[in-house]
């Protein structure tokens, strides 16, 4: 009971701050709202008994990536907000969006959405530990994807230097 109340509050904050991200005129305000959204998502991870994911969410997203986003906003230095656009595009895209929304709701109501039940239930997470489960998957079944990740980071390092260093 208490937990679902808590969830509803956090969910409301998440949706609200998500809306603020795209409606704020000042990009810095958008970025701050995005941080709030990230924290709400981290809270969801905690409620789903995934504390490691919550920590990563805070460290990587709310920490490092937000720093980058704020840097880029300051780099671009957008002075005035763009003019208000009231073209037909807004109308047409909202009609299409509403149509897709109703279509989705209709299909969700009339067909099954059940997936296969996974191995990782609350009891298992309690007995083994969330981070250990992730680590075990990462270092055995997903060893190759794990090693490719480091190649991916290497390419990103080279790419960052090639794209943004003054002299290369």
């Amino acid at each position, binding site marked *: 009971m208490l937990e679902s109340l808590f969830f509803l509050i956090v969910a409301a904050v998440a949706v609200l701050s998500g809306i603020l991200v795209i409606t704020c005129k000042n990009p810095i305000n958008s970025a701050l709202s995005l941080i709030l959204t990230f924290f709400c998502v981290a809270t969801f991870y905690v409620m789903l008994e995934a504390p490691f994911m919550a920590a990563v969410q805070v460290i990587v997203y709310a920490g490092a990536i937000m720093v*980058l986003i704020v840097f880029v906003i300051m*780099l671009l230095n957008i002075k005035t907000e763009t003019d208000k656009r009231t073209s037909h595009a807004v109308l047409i895209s909202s009609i299409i969006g509403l149509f897709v929304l109703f279509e989705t709701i209709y299909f969700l109501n009339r067909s099954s959405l059940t997936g296969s039940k996974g191995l990782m239930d609350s009891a298992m997470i309690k007995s083994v530990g969330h981070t250990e489960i992730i680590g075990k998957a990462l270092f055995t079944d997903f060893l190759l994807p794990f090693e490719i990740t480091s190649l991916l*980071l290497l390419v990103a390092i080279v790419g960052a230097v090639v794209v943004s260093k003054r002299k290369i």
Partner: protein
Amino acid sequence: MLGAYLPILLLVVISICFGLGALVLSSFVGPKKPSKVKLQPYECGCEPVGSARERFSIKFYLIAMLFILFDIEAVFLYPWSILFKKLGMFGLAEMGVFIAILLVGYIYIWKKGALEWE
């Protein structure tokens, strides 16, 4: 289950209340006599020069980007360190390959001078 996180929640609530409380309280209690000098941004006591909204140099971007990449590397170290004993030598080798590949990237940016403030 969520009880374990109650202290964190309390901390968040208290810090928000503390921050807001200080602002609200000072706006009620403190005397307000604004003048042009008082409303200026504080810049180490000097006269402010130019606008505060300067364009950032792209150098910051490169540093922030490299920071994220090595931050992600560090994230992978947590589950590994928890399982270190169970994984044994094999786990050491796995992480060794992972770090060696990133070490190549580190040597690359170092020799390239990307860590220098040019």
